[in-house]
């Protein structure tokens, strides 16, 4: 078993070949389209130019610095919105009154695009990191809250009763039963929340000039430098795929292992 992991089997090799082949074909087609100049090369650059821009912006540190700054904001905003979202979700799930009232507000705020928060963010928090993080927060908190609420709503009463007859106090019930039982839906909520947070961050970073991927994208656009825009898009895509595969893919696998298929 172990050896089969270290030495890729024939199937794994073929799979890899197929994937690599596909991407090579995509880039070749792209290159061809770029060469034939079906569209204006100033708006649809060739892969060579995009990769050159990628190289330049990696070399001069812009992308790495931007990536670091963006990830920092994302993590801070995401953690806060996770805590807030969970709290809101639990509150609306636990209290009928809260659900009837705050529940509606949460649902409404969830439908507000990040862009609407920009003026308020600047007004309330000025030219600070807080303003950007506020935009991220508004973008993902409510989505997480809705997931958390659904998760707690779906909690089987059987487990609560089981804990009760085993002597759980109210606090123990939350700590040892409600929270762990919600993990699968929490993972789903976190995944969705991340997606929203990431997009909101890109909007938030347009607020004012600061280091960050969203800002780099804006610079590229303001300079009408489509090579740079594409290069940053590639970076954003890479981050998106990496986070999904590494973080959420693993979390989901773990949930599947622990909670069983049905739950995931």
């Amino acid at each position: 078993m172990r050896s089969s992991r270290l030495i890729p089997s024939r199937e794994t090799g073929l799979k890899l070949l197929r994937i690599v082949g596909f991407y090579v074909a995509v880039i070749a087609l792209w290159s061809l389209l770029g060469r034939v100049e079906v569209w204006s090369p100033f708006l649809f650059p060739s892969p060579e130019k995009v990769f050159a821009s990628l190289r330049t912006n990696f070399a001069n540190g812009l992308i790495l610095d931007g990536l670091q700054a963006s990830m920092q904001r994302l993590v801070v905003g995401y953690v806060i919105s996770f805590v807030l979202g969970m709290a809101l979700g639990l509150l609306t799930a636990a209290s009928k009154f809260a659900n009837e009232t705050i529940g509606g507000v949460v649902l409404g705020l969830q439908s507000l695009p990040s862009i609407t928060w920009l003026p308020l963010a600047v007004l309330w928090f000025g030219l600070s990191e807080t303003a950007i993080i506020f935009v991220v927060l508004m973008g993902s908190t409510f989505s997480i809250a809705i997931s958390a609420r659904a998760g707690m709503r779906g909690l089987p009463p059987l487990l609560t009763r089981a804990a009760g007859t085993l002597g759980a106090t109210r606090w123990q019930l939350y700590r040892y039963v409600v929270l762990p039982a919600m993990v699968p839906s929490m993972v789903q909520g976190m995944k969705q929340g991340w997606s929203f947070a990431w997009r909101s961050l890109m909007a938030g970073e347009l607020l004012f000039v600061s280091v960050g991927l969203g800002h780099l994208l804006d610079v590229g656009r303001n300079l009408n430098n489509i090579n740079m825009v594409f290069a940053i898009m590639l970076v954003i895509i890479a981050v998106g795929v990496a986070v999904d595969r590494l973080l959420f893919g693993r979390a989901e696998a773990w949930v599947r292992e622990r909670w069983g298929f049905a739950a995931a």
Partner: protein
Amino acid sequence: MALIADTGRQGGGRASAASDPEPLLALRHISKHFRTSRQDTLALDDVTLKVRPREFICIVGPSGCGKSTLLNIAAGIDTDYQGEAVFEGAPIRGMAQQRAVVFQEPALFPWLNVRDNVEFGLKLRGVPKEQRREIVDRQLALVNLSRFDRAYIHELSGGMKQRAQLARGLAVEPHVLLMDEPFAALDAQTRDDLQLELQSVWARIGTTVLFVTHNVREAVILGDRVVVMSPSPGRIKKIIDIPLERPRTPDDHAVADLAAAVRYELQNVGAEPEPRYAI
């Protein structure tokens, strides 16, 4: 219908039906209404039942006759009723470790492995780690799950899950074990196995059991007494003594005959067109 006379019982420590010491659990004149906007169901109507220490009581009856309702009241899950539910001299006010429940569906925590599930109640009570391990090991051995202590719940078969639930209930050393159709969802073979096992566990540790089922054969194999209930409103129709030697097996002719006797009682409890198919 012929009730076979008391033909000697194993486990001499058990109180006999004749002498009546202080009951462990006493349900007196219990009535329970379910009121919804549309109707008012009288689920239990003046039900009185006394359970003696170390006794194994089976409750049978058609679907909807109030078996689960009665058990929920005894467990303290349901506290809204008329009448008196007394346990060890004190009124029942809520759920407690002394009255462990084994539910029909496997109510195990899927995020914990078998060992942690069995340990759950002990942990809540703050039992020290060393001691916890010891108790859990003993209980897992009792239900033949020692080899699966690290398995997760979804890796177990239905029978293993009910075994684990039983172990979890037993681990907190309850004074009474309340079981609500614990084997109903199992296939017949696993059910046969578990009936045997429950008998032996009960014989060894001598706890008190209140066992709800609608499987007559099961009731006869397991019970010291079988309580037959009738529906609409839920009432106790008859209590039948089962004076058979243990362990009892499903293919015994004596079991078959007593089952026929219980079935006879059940046949007259009134027509119930649909609930028959409700599981």
